[in-house]
């Protein structure tokens, strides 16, 4: 007897990592895998939004308690992930840490900085897709690529999403330790794709 598939409920988070060589040829692709790790800061922002009559603080990436929501600033000052080229303070971020996720993580363990120095990678912009119905699901995709111009191989072991609030504070809302480290040789790139998915 075929086991009945358990229906997902809530918001699914999926993660895909694609490695390309210097010429754009795909040399590695994890395919879409379930991710684990919405963090407490995600729900703290939603709480602020729903409540709407009070400021909301949450642990920022520097470990201090800072605004994730204030009542008197424009909407486009909050929860932004659309980081520009060479910006490593928000958007999708990657790192080399492999300590297991916890609910109260507030940053990556060892973030890879933007640049071409040792252990650094060049960050492209983070893009946010339009939300759409895809088969039985509704999907929202967030993407970013990172190019390794450091002169040596870098092994990516963690990924996440940092949001920006009122131009000053960053909050980690998602962190995932990858099932296996992904080697990115010199001159190659890695693309990280997060999909938020709902299904009624």
């Amino acid at each position, binding site marked *: 007897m075929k086991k009945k598939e358990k229906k997902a409920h809530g918001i699914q988070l999926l993660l895909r990592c694609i490695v390309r060589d210097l010429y754009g040829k795909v040399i590695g692709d994890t395919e879409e895998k379930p991710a684990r790790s*919405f963090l*407490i800061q995600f729900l703290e922002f939603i709480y602020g*939004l729903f409540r709407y*009559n009070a400021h909301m603080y949450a642990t920022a990436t520097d470990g201090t308690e800072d605004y994730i929501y204030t009542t008197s600033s424009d*909407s486009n000052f909050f929860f932004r992930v*659309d980081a520009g080229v060479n910006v490593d303070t928000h958007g999708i971020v990657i790192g080399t840490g492999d300590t297991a996720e916890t609910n109260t993580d507030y940053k990556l363990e060892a973030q890879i900085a933007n640049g071409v120095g040792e252990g650094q990678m060049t960050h492209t912009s983070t893009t946010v897709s339009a939300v759409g*119905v895809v088969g039985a*699901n509704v999907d929202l995709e967030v993407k970013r690529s990172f190019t390794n111009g450091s002169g040596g191989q870098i092994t990516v072991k963690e990924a996440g999403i940092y949001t920006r609030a009122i131009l000053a504070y960053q909050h980690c809302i998602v962190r995932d330790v990858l099932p296996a480290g992904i080697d990115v040789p010199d001159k190659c790139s890695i693309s990280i794709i997060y999909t938020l998915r709902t299904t*009624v």
Partner: protein
Amino acid sequence: MNLELYYRILKHDPDGRLVKDTGMMPSGSYVIQFLEMIGALFDGIRGTFTDTNGAESTMIYELENIDESGQVRAPALDDKFGLVVGTNAGVSAEDNEDYALDSKIPHGDVGAVGTMNYRDVTFVAPRVVGPNVDFDVFRAFINENDATITVKEIGIITRMDYGVDKFHLILRDVVADEAVEAGYTLTVGYTLRSTA
């Protein structure tokens, strides 16, 4: 792990005694407007999406104060937003693109047939509960009529209060029939849960 969603329905008799508790039930019912709202915030853009009237209207206004968007903390007597209940008279199953309850029960005073007295929406802030982080949203509905009302659907509607108020559905669940007799109170809760 998913950002899980559960609902829970409790019923109290006129003396305040708990007579029914569904426990935490898995909900499958984020509708498209929820992710559209998140996407607009992620991107810092205006979000114009299908409202509860079936029209396209602003849900996130990027150049206005954020506290005008995404409001769920509805006060007592206000049935336009917050947690809402309905009778699902059309027997509609949930759909990704639902934008309204099938048949929402309006707020009403004592004796108003087919209404319930909407209390204020309350929250329990996100906190670590065992291996999870939980954020709870609750609302109570009192049947102040002589006749029983049967609740068959629940959901959450946000308000955008810049200019003319706009309302957008973000959750809808069709639930097992919950008969609410005269004088009884139904309390509906949603729990948003993350687990690293």
